[in-house]
C-alpha cells in the first residue's frame, strides 16, 4: 500500500490491520509521552485546497506524534489562490522532498490524479476530494463503532448503522458505506430523496426515507452535516421541516436501543441536523471521534511511511 485514495483500495484484512494498528497507537496518545521517534526525518505536506479544521489538525497532530516534519499548505495565502495548477504545486512539493502529501481538494478525483501522475514520488493520502471519498474519516468512524459495539470481534458483523442526512454531497457517507459494509455491518441511508445521489441503489446498503422507522433498531447513528452553503438549491422546503423529519432530537434519542451510539463527523449545525442535547448527551461519541481520528491517522502514516515500500507488495509483515 503506497497511497490511501479510496476505501475500494483496501481489502477487509487491510482495513482491520489499520484499525488494530490505531488501537495500539491510541495507547501513545493516552500515555505521558505523546511522541514516538518512528517517522523522524520524514516530511509530510498538508495540502488543503479546501477549508478544514478537524482533518488538517488531526493529520498534523498524528504526524507530529510520530516525529515527522509537517508543512501546512492551504489555498488561502499560497499560490493556489493565484491560480497555480495542481501539477505545478505537486512539482514544487516534490522538489522540497515531501515523503507524503495529504490532500483535501474540492474536485472529486484530485487525490487519484496526484497519485497516478509522475509529478511527485511520495505517498498520497486522500483527506477528502469533492463529493467522492474521505477514507480516513470512514476508518475513524469504523474504529469508534468497533471500540464501542463489536464486543471484542475484529470486524463489525451483525451491527446496524444508519447514516442520516445529506448523502448526495457527502464523501463521508460514501466512504462509510463502502467500509462499514466491507467490515460486515448493515448500513441504512436515511435521507429525503432529493439528497440521495443517482445510482445509490447499487451501493451496498439499504435506503429509507423515514428516520422514525429506522431509529429503534440501529446500533449506531451517524448524522451528516447539512451543508448550508449548498442549500440555495432547494433540496428541502426549509430548515425547520428538515429538522422535524431528519433531525436527531431527544425524543428520537429515547427511541434508540440501549447502548446505541450517536456520531457526527463535524462540524455540526446544532439545531438543524442535531439538537444540542443529542450532541452532548450520554450516547454521543462525537468528541471521542476526534480523538480516535488522531490514532487512525497515525496508523495510516505509520503503515504508509515507516516501512520500505519496495518490500510492501506482500502487505503488512509481522
Amino acid at each position, binding site marked *: *500500500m503506497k497511497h490511501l485514495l479510496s476505501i475500494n483500495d483496501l481489502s477487509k484484512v487491510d482495513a482491520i*490491520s489499520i484499525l*488494530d*494498528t490505531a488501537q*495500539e*497507537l491510541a*495507547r*501513545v496518545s493516552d*500515555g*505521558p*509521552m505523546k511522541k*514516538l*521517534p*518512528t517517522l523522524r526525518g520524514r516530511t509530510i505536506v498538508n495540502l488543503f485546497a479546501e477549508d478544514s479544521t478537524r482533518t488538517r489538525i488531526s493529520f498534523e497532530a498524528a504526524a507530529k506524534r510520530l516525529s515527522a516534519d509537517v508543512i501546512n499548505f492551504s489555498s488561502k495565502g499560497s499560490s493556489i489562490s493565484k491560480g497555480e495548477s495542481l501539477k505545478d504545486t505537486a512539482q514544487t512539493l516534490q522538489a522540497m522532498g515531501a515523503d507524503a502529501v495529504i490532500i483535501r481538494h474540492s474536485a472529486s478525483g484530485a487525490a487519484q490524479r496526484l497519485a497516478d501522475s509522475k509529478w511527485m514520488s511520495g505517498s498520497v493520502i486522500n483527506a477528502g476530494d469533492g463529493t467522492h471519498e474521505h477514507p480516513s474519516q470512514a476508518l475513524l468512524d469504523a474504529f469508534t463503532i468497533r471500540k464501542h459495539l463489536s464486543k471484542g470481534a475484529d470486524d463489525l458483523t451483525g451491527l446496524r448503522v444508519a447514516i442520516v442526512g445529506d448523502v448526495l454531497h457527502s464523501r463521508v457517507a460514501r466512504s462509510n458505506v463502502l467500509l462499514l459494509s466491507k467490515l460486515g455491518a448493515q448500513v441504512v441511508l436515511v435521507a429525503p430523496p432529493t439528497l440521495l445521489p443517482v445510482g445509490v441503489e447499487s451501493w451496498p446498503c439499504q435506503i429509507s426515507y423515514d428516520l422514525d422507522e429506522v431509529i429503534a433498531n440501529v446500533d449506531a447513528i451517524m448524522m451528516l452535516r447539512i451543508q448550508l452553503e449548498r442549500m440555495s438549491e432547494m433540496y428541502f422546503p426549509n430548515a425547520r421541516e428538515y429538522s422535524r423529519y431528519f433531525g436527531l432530537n431527544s425524543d428520537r434519542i429515547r427511541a434508540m436501543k440501549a447502548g446505541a451510539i450517536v456520531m457526527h463527523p463535524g462540524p455540526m449545525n446544532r439545531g438543524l441536523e442535531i439538537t444540542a442535547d443529542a450532541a452532548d448527551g450520554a450516547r454521543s461519541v462525537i468528541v471521542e471521534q476526534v480523538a480516535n481520528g488522531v490514532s487512525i491517522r497515525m496508523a495510516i502514516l*505509520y*503503515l*504508509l511511511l*515507516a*516501512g*520500505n515500500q519496495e*518490500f*510492501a507488495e*506482500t*502487505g*503488512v*509483515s*509481522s
Partner: protein
Amino acid sequence: MGLALPAPDIARALIRISHEILERNSGSANITLLGIPTRGAHLAKRIASAMEKIEGTSVQMGTLDITLHRDDLRMRAPRALMPTVIPPLGVEGRDVVLIDDVLFSGRTIRAALDALGEIGRPKSVQLAVLVDRGHRQLPIRADFVGKNLPTSIEQSVVVHLTELDGADEVLIEGPLP
C-alpha cells in the same frame, strides 16, 4: 539443521532463570516482567508462573512491543504492531525484567529500552533471554541467560515454542562454524 536445545533443557533453563531473577531481586515483590512479542511474551508468561509457584505470590507481568522504536523500519516492509500490556502497578520505580527469546545484535533490546523510557522510569532494568548467540553490535549484555550458543554469523537460531509452533525446541540452521 541441528537441535541445540531440546524441550526438557528449555524447561530447566526457564526454571533456573526464574530462581536467579528471584535471588537477584530478593523476591518478586518489586519485579515487573515484560516479554517482547511474540516469543518473549510467551516466555515471560512461563517465567511468571514458575516464579509464582516458587514464591506463592502473584507476579506483575506484561508485554512490550518495540516495533515503533526499531532502527531498521525503513529496511523492511511495514510491520504490524503487537500488543503492549503494562501490568497494573506500571513500571515507575519497579525492577523491570525484559524477556526475549534470542539475544543477537542487541538492537531489539536498545529499542526496548527506548520503548520502556516512554512508559516510565523503572528503578532498574534487567534482561533475561533463552539463548545468547553472540555477535553483539551494541554494548548490551543479558543478566540471565538460558544457554550461550556459539554460532557463526551465517547461521540462524530458530526458537519454537509449544504455544505457537506445537513444540519446544531451539534449532541452529545454516553452515557449521
